[in-house]
């Protein structure tokens, strides 16, 4: 589904990603962990096409297409989704108008007619239930005045609406209390299928208790320096990153 080969990327002339390799297949859950500043958020932003980042080398294919050649909106249409670490507040744009635009542009991309108003609202209602998102939030401006937990639930709600093939959850657990974490994680698990895949970026084992990864990777200094099964996350939780840092820095 996703093949990243020797990906290099920089922002404002500073190289952050220095040769990332990663393959994700349908049905898999990958966790990417790593110390602060190792490039985790950069990787998710480069994959979704943030204009501030420049790809300086390597290639990424997604569903057989050259992902890096696509605009951010076309990447979304092709089935890529990023749950933001810091979801953006958009005053004046209602969740309903925002979601309707997103859904209908995707339909347009695939040559389908726009969803009727009643079908759209029905879909909203159905998907809202997955993350127990209050109807009041859905009628407000995008993320405006939402609590930290509500913002993250809203991200998963959008994911449910857009039904992506590959979801990247960028520190979705940050700023969540236990209850919200459980709701968000169960939302993600509900949406999981054999045909889609998830990349979970996190600092902590905590989230991985709820969203079980098949693979755990450690990103450090812009490279994936270690990959293993779920047991690696437990080991990191216990021992921290210092032993990996020492190992890599000695090389």
């Amino acid at each position, binding site marked *: 589904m996703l093949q990243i080969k020797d990906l290099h990327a920089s922002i404002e002339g500073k190289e952050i990603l220095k040769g990332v390799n990663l393959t994700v297949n349908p049905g898999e859950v990958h966790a990417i962990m790593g110390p602060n500043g190792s490039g985790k958020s950069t990787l998710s932003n480069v994959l979704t096409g943030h204009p501030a980042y420049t790809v300086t080398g390597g290639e990424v294919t997604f569903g057989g297409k050259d992902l890096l050649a696509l605009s951010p909106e076309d990447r979304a249409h092709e089935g890529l989704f990023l749950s933001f670490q810091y979801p953006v507040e958009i005053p*004046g744009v209602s969740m309903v108008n925002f979601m309707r635009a997103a859904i209908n542009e995707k339909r347009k991309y695939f040559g389908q007619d726009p969803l009727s108003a009643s079908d759209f609202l029905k879909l909203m209602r159905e998907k809202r239930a997955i993350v127990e998102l209050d109807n009041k939030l859905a009628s407000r401006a995008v993320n405006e005045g939402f609590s930290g937990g509500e913002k993250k639930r809203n991200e998963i709600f959008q994911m449910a609406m857009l039904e992506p093939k590959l979801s990247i959850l960028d520190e979705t657990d940050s700023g969540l209390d236990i209850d919200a974490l459980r709701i968000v994680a169960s939302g993600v698990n509900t949406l999981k299928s054999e045909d889609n895949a998830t990349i979970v970026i996190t600092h902590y084992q905590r989230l991985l208790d709820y969203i079980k990864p098949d693979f755990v990777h450690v990103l450090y200094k812009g490279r994936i320096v270690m990959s293993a099964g779920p047991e690696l996350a437990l080991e990191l939780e216990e021992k921290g990153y210092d032993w990996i840092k020492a190992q890599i820095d000695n090389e």
Partner: protein
Amino acid sequence: MNALRQYIDLFNDNRKVIEAGSPAVLNAQRDAALAALHGARLPRKGSEDYEATDLEAVFAPDYGMNLTRIAFGGDATESFRCDVPNMSTCLYTCFNDVIVPGPNAMRNAGGMVVETFKEAATRHPEVLARYGSLAQFDDPTVALNTLLAQDGLLVYVPRGVVAERPLQLVNIFNTTQPLMAVRRVLVVLEDGASARMLVCDHTQSKDVNFLSSQVVEIIAGEDSTFDYYDLEESTPLTHRVSTIYARQARGSNVLIDGITLTNGFTRNNYRVTVDGEHAETTLLGMTVAGDEQHVDTHTLISHNAGLCRSNEMFKYVLGDKAVGAFAGKILIKEGCPRVEAYQGNRNLCASPQARMYTKPQLEIYTDDVKASHGTTIGQLDQEALYYMRTRGISEAEAQRLLMQAFMSDVIDGVRLDVLRDRLHYLVEKRFNGTLASCSSCAEACMVKG
């Protein structure tokens, strides 16, 4: 070269004709107006309060004038449907510069008196006598308007009358020859009266040069309430110089909202004087400009009494090579305690060539007041754009949604439900390009025949 000269000459040559077609109360002002214009000059670009706007150039062309009061052919109300339809059956149309009442206008006025100045001269002379009581000749465009005005619309709301239906005045330009229209409105609200008014400026002849000189005087009595919405949807060749004066007595509540969706050149002046305590003033403005549209707003709110509130917010979205200007002053005179006055001017430049000039000013001579001003000029929020694009919303659509969102609070400030909903729709059309100029909005205008 002095553009005023040709108008003064025109007046001197045709004074008899002009005065013959006008009520006496209008003629009584002309000598003072003429004296004020003696030696005056129209401001050029760069002069005080005209940093971006050249009025001399706007008045320089030789526009024709309808001095002999020809009633322009056709029934305007039949040939034109405004962009804000079904709002009111109390509809008056100013066809170029001739005012025509709609079919049921009189019946639906609901206690309001709406008359042309000519009608008012015989029916309500004591009210019409207040014509010119607010207009100031320190502004040569106001003196010129007074020098040449031959008719206008009087809106008189007697004591305690609450007019339920809003009054709508549609100004239309439609001739084959360049024309200057001298338009005039006088609104008198007696104590406790309440009314709402929507003025729509349209231009039907898109290839013809027009100049509209407009002066509006609003006299708000004690505890009266008045909303004045001013919506311009004209053409690149339409030039508009408008000054709205309002004087508020104790406890009155006045809202003035100036909206420019399509235009050529526009200068809007607002002069609000608050004379009594507990009065409330709301001044709103919204401009969407593209191409080479030019919209310049100048406001002055003078607080002459304590315990008043004023709230002012003007928003601009400028694209292409549009030029916007805003200069706003709040003046709180000595001995006006506990006034609260807020001014905001927020602007989005959506293209690198668009230009915004802004100048907020506070002048305060009383200690115990709250006053603030805030001005921003910015671009669209790049993070919000990116966020929307990651959800599959195209860049163009995301920009449109953000620009519309930017305007939503000034639209929501409209206190007339029908107009508010309609404005959301019109602004959406404006941003998605289907209201790019009046010439392309035939669908909305429904010009028949």
